[in-house]
């Protein structure tokens, strides 16, 4: 049964290889190969899942050791996989949502002549993401970690002829690299401290603890901070969040799969997986929660201001992941709920993105929400699925988002002390804003009168429902976003499923769960009504009004990019230019200077050879005199 794990990864990897090396002759069937292999991987995942369910809770960890990867003395890195409840959850999410989005892309990318390559990249991403969650040691995880980075680079920049896309791709990779730096430093510290970086011996299980316990808290804090840095990079948390917005340059399925459902949540996976380390390093944990809280507000605010539907959703993604990170930072109180929200979010956010994609598909790639309006009667399926996703994300009671988010807010309060109150407050505020901007999106897109007009080529967009290959995945995801939450939390199924890995404790909630739930619903209602009053009652200007200072700042991602541009980009340019100059003049100049001086000296010496016999004679005579002097001295001595 263990051997299936490798096949899990092998299937999409094979797909990627075949599609990328296959050449044009595969253009006709390429997309189906990709989709089928993704589905196969999902089937394997399902089989393994059933198998795990068969075992009792304590023995649900499968490991597979393939071969020794980098053996150098003490440094032993193996290619080994570890499948436990945590990675199982991810496997199902990745392969499931992944397959659906493959299916969706078949329709969405129909008119792109490079569709084969697109599916190749998607498969590559699946393989890398699976490797990330299945790796049995941090170094192998790092491989997957950068692998998904590469895939996202390729997919964001898929339409490379657009300079904006190419730039966005580069930006995403670079910002991620900064995070990766953190991860690799963390691995170095682990190796020098513990002599290993494999999960098993390092983290241990909750009955017999790993090596982690045997070192100072300072070291662990250092490791924790480095891991947090990595998580920030990958999960677009402040201060490394700037790439996510631009990443929307990629095709919509990519945004749905990578930048909403799976890859961006890898950071959360990393933190939860390294729980043992964070539990022992409270300072690092605190910082995690702070980052989470800041990001969830940051993203929400940005989401309110964007008129580009995908950018708005991107902001919301950022903020939702903020919730997860916040939860993960709470330690055993929050781990489970972080993952739970991650899964439900995977469903409804993917659904929302696919809906957005379907809308753009019908509006010949118009992304400005102010040019939509009243689309509900033109594309009903999209409207319904999108709507369900919307209700899920704002936490409408009974839908999946409600359960997961509510639990997180509870956990935040349960952290206890002032921190608890602050974090909880932030989470609540975030919930309100979420409701506000999602309602805004919903209203602008599907309600009100139609606001679209002919584009520069003069042909009027005539919205239409997307083909079934696109609608089916949307419908399935809608189901997920409706029922997943209930399925998980009724009887705490999900809790019991994950507990053996993450551990759980209830913390000490200062206020009862019921109060939290009530307040959550209350703020949700407030947010919705506010948005409705602002956008539903009054006609919406096609051109965005100048807006308040905050709005303008939020449109520019709260000036984060400007900061980067001024400080990093400009500064970097000047630095490199001056260095190039220095290298040419100073370093090289010294050498050339020496050469020149030698030449000059010899030229001057050359003058002594004036060719006059008499001056030669003088030197001879002088030499004779010196000889005499020498002999005399000899005799004198």
């Amino acid at each position, binding site marked *: 049964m263990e051997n299936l794990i490798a096949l899990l990864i092998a299937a999409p990897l094979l797909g990627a290889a075949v599609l990328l090396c296959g050449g044009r002759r595969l253009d006709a069937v390429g997309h189906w190969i990709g989709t089928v292999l993704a589905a196969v991987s999902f089937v394997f995942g399902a089989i393994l899942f059933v198998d795990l369910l068969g075992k009792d809770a304590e023995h649900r960890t499968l490991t597979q050791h393939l071969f020794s990867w980098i053996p150098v003395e003490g440094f032993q890195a193996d290619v080994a996989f570890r499948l436990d409840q945590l990675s199982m959850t991810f496997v199902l999410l990745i392969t499931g949502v992944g397959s659906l989005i493959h299916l969706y892309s078949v329709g969405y990318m129909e008119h792109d002549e490079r569709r084969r390559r697109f599916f190749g990249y998607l498969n590559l991403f699946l393989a890398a993401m699976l490797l990330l969650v299945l790796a049995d040691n941090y170094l192998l995880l790092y491989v997957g970690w950068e692998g998904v980075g590469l895939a996202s680079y390729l997919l964001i920049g898929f339409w490379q002829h657009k300079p904006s896309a190419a730039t966005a791709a580069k930006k995403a990779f670079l910002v991620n690299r900064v995070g990766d730096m953190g991860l690799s430093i963390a691995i170095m510290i682990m190796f020098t401290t513990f002599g290993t970086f494999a999960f098993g011996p390092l983290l241990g299980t909750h009955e017999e603890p790993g090596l982690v316990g045997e070192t100072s808290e300072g070291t662990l804090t250092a490791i924790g901070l480095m891991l947090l840095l990595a998580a920030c990079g990958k999960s677009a948390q402040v201060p490394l969040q700037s790439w996510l917005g631009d990443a929307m340059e990629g095709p919509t399925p990519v945004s749905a799969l990578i930048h909403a459902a799976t890859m961006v949540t890898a950071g959360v996976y990393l933190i939860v997986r390294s729980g043992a380390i964070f539990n022992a390093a409270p300072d690092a944990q605190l910082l995690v929660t702070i980052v989470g809280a800041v990001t969830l507000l940051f993203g929400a605010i940005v989401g309110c201001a964007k008129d580009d539907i995908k950018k708005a959703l991107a902001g919301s993604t950022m903020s939702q992941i903020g919730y997860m990170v916040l939860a993960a930072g709470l330690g055993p109180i929050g781990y489970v709920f972080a993952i739970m929200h991650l899964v439900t979010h995977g469903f409804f956010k993917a659904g929302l993105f696919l809906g957005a994609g379907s809308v753009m598909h019908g509006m010949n790639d118009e992304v400005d929400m102010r040019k939509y309006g009243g689309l509900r009667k033109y594309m009903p399926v999209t409207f319904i699925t999108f709507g369900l996703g919307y209700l899920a994300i704002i936490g409408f009671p009974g839908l999946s988002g409600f359960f997961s988010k509510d639990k997180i807010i509870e956990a935040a309060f349960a952290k206890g002390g002032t921190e608890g109150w602050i974090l909880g407050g932030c989470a609540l505020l975030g919930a309100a804003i979420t409701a506000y901007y999602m309602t805004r999106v919903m209203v602008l897109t599907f309600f009100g009168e139609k606001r679209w007009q002919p584009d520069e080529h003069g042909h009027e967009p005539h919205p239409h429902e997307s083909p079934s290959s696109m609608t089916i995945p949307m419908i399935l995801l809608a189901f997920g976003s409706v029922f997943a939450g209930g399925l998980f939390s009724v009887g705490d199924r999900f809790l019991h499923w994950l507990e053996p890995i993450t551990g759980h404790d209830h913390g000490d909630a200062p206020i009862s769960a019921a109060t939290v739930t009530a307040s959550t619903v209350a703020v949700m209602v407030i947010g919705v009504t506010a948005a409705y009053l602002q956008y539903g009652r009054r006609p919406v200007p096609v051109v965005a009004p100048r807006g308040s200072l905050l709005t303008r700042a939020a449109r520019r991602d709260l000036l984060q990019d400007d900061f980067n541009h001024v400080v990093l980009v400009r500064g970097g340019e000047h630095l490199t230019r001056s260095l190039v100059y220095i290298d040419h003049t100073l370093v090289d100049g010294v050498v050339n200077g020496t050469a020149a001086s030698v030449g000059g000296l010899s030229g001057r010496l050359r003058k002594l050879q004036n060719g*006059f016999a008499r001056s030669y004679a*003088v030197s001879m*005579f002088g030499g004779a005199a010196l000889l005499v002097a020498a002999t*005399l001295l000899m*005799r004198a001595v």
Partner: protein
Amino acid sequence: MSAQLAAYSTSTGEAFQFWVLGTVAVIGALGTVFMKKAVHSALCLAGTMIVLAVFYLANGAYFLGVVQIVVYTGAIMMLFLFVVMLVGVTAADSLKETIKGQRWLALLCGLGFGILLFAGIGNASLTEFNGLAQANANGNVEGLAALLFTKYVFAFEITGALLITAAVGAMVLTHRERTERARTQRELAEQRVREGKNVPPLPAPGVYARHNAVDIAGLLPDGTPSELTVSKTLRERGQIRDVSTEALNDLKALEQRAEERLERTAVEPANLKRAEEASK
């Protein structure tokens, strides 16, 4: 002075002679170096050499003394004078230094070298000296001959070979092989016509001349001297005596005397003009 005397002692007489003639020798040497004209240098050198010859005699080297006078002062210095005559006085004679710093370096080296030599001789212990008494017992020349034809015979032969080689070498160097036929009068004339300069033969020296020395340029009808009339060598040496002015004065004087004798009035300007035209 006699052989015995020279043999083992230095009489006050010799001392006196040394100081006097030594001074002469040094002066001669300095003259050789600092005289402007090569001829004078040669004469100074000759003087020095004679003094040296005397010193040889005083040191009991009678044969060398004689040879010094005969060969050096006689033959070699004559050779020098011949060459000086051939080459003549050149611009090289001027004592003005052309190479920068050469003179000062030279004097510095010379001074240093001299001082060093003197120092060397100073600490050399040259006090004891045994005269040439028994060496010259049966005649200085015999003594030399004995050595020369026994001990140094080989060197002697070699020297002979050297002399012959030198003689041959001198001939080879000075004898110039004519590579092309000498040009005939006709060819020279034709070339002059072709080049169009000096088409008539060069003017002879002494036109309107009062002197017949070769170093005086002949005068043209207008009384200016013509360089062409003087030999090339003199021209290169810049040894031309210009007498044009005095010649003109003589001419005036002549005319005046003629007037007085013939009681004529002054010549009309017209004639003068014509005369000038004719002279042009």
